C-alpha cells in the first residue's frame, strides 16, 4: 500500500478504504453467483450488472491504495481480507436472503459513501461521488425488491437474521443512523459478538479459494 496522499488536513484513512474495497469485491462476487441462475432472466441481467459495478468499485478503491490493484485484490492470504461477515455469506439458492442482504448492504454502503464524499482528500471524495452515481441505481433496485417482498415471511425472517451483520459492518458511529433509516432497532453489543470485521466465517475459505484460484494457478504471471 502507498502512504497517505499528504494533501489533506486530516490523514486519509486507508484502513477504511481497504475495508470498503474488500466488501465491494466480495459482495460483488457473491451477487455474481446468481449469473445464469437468477429467478427470471431480466433479474439475471440486472443483478449481474450490479455485481459487476461493485467489483468495479472495488477495483477503483484498490487503485487508490496500491499501484497493482490485482495484487491487492487477489494475492492476500485469506485472513488478511477485511471484508465484513455479511458479505461472506453464501445464499445460493435462497433469493429472499440474497435480497435481504442486498437491501441492508446498500443502505449501510450509502452511509459510508456519504462520509467518503465529504473527505478532505480530493481523490477519495471524487471517487466516492463517482461510485455513488452508480449506487443510486443499486439502491433503487434494492428498494423495489424490498417493497415487493415486504410481506413475504421468508424475507422478513432474513432481514431479522441479517440486520446485526449489517450493523456490525459499519463504523460504530454510523450505526444509529442506519437503524433509523431502516426503521430497525439497533442491536445490542451482545448480538454483535462474532460479527466484527476481520472475522472470517465458514463460507469464507471456499470463496477465497475460488476467487484466487486462477491467479494462484500461475503465480507471478502477467495476464
Amino acid at each position, binding site marked *: 500500500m502507498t502512504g497517505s496522499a499528504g494533501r489533506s488536513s486530516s490523514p486519509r484513512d486507508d484502513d477504511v478504504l481497504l475495508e470498503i474495497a474488500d466488501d465491494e469485491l466480495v459482495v460483488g462476487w457473491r451477487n455474481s453467483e446468481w449469473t445464469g441462475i437468477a429467478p*427470471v432472466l*431480466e433479474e439475471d*441481467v*440486472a443483478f449481474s450488472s*450490479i455485481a459487476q459495478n461493485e467489483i468495479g468499485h472495488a477495483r477503483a478503491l484498490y487503485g487508490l491504495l496500491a499501484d497493482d490493484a490485482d495484487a491487492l485484490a487477489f494475492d492476500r492470504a485469506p485472513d488478511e481480507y477485511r471484508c465484513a461477515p455479511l458479505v461472506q455469506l453464501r445464499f445460493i439458492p435462497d433469493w429472499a436472503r440474497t435480497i435481504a442482504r442486498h437491501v441492508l448492504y446498500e443502505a449501510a454502503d450509502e452511509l459510508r459513501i456519504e462520509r467518503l464524499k465529504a473527505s478532505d482528500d480530493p481523490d477519495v471524495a471524487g471517487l466516492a461521488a463517482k461510485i455513488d452515481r452508480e449506487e443510486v441505481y443499486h439502491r433503487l433496485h434494492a428498494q*423495489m425488491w424490498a417493497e415487493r417482498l415486504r410481506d413475504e415471511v421468508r424475507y422478513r425472517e432474513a432481514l431479522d437474521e441479517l440486520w446485526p451483520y449489517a450493523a456490525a459492518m459499519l463504523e460504530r458511529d454510523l450505526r444509529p443512523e442506519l437503524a433509523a433509516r431502516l426503521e430497525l432497532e439497533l442491536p445490542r453489543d451482545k448480538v454483535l459478538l462474532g460479527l466484527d470485521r476481520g472475522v472470517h466465517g465458514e463460507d469464507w475459505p471456499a470463496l477465497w479459494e475460488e476467487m484466487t484460484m486462477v491467479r494462484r494457478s500461475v503465480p507471478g504471471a502477467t495476464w
Partner: protein
Amino acid sequence: MSNTDPESDVRSASRAGAGGRLRRPEGAGGQGAGIYEVFRRERKGQAFEHAGSVAAPDVAFAEAYAHEQYGRRGESAALWIVPRDAIREIDDFPDELGRNYHRVDGYSLKVKLAEARERAASAAGGNR
C-alpha cells in the same frame, strides 16, 4: 429480452398483460405486469429508436431492468419505457383501386425521364 417477431409479440400482449406470459409466485402478477417496450436515444438531440423490450412485474422493475440492459454500457443518453399494451399497431393499408398517385412512389420520375431523353435523342437524330 428483445423479440424478433413483432407481430406475434403484439398479439400476445393482452395475454402478457393479464399475467399469462410470465410464471410468477402467488400474488405477484399485479397491475403493470407484462412486457415493456424500450426506446433508446443514443445522443441528445437524436430521435428515440426502438431498442427491445423487458419483461417486468411492474413499471418500477421495468425501469430498473431497462436501465441495466440498455444503459449500463453508456450506450444510451435516455430511455423511454412503454407498456406494450399502450402501443396500438396499424398494419392494414388497403389500396384496392390502385390509386398510385396517392403514394410517393406512384409517379415514377425515373421512367418519365428516360422516355423524355429517348424522345430528345431521336428528335436530334432526325434533324441531322
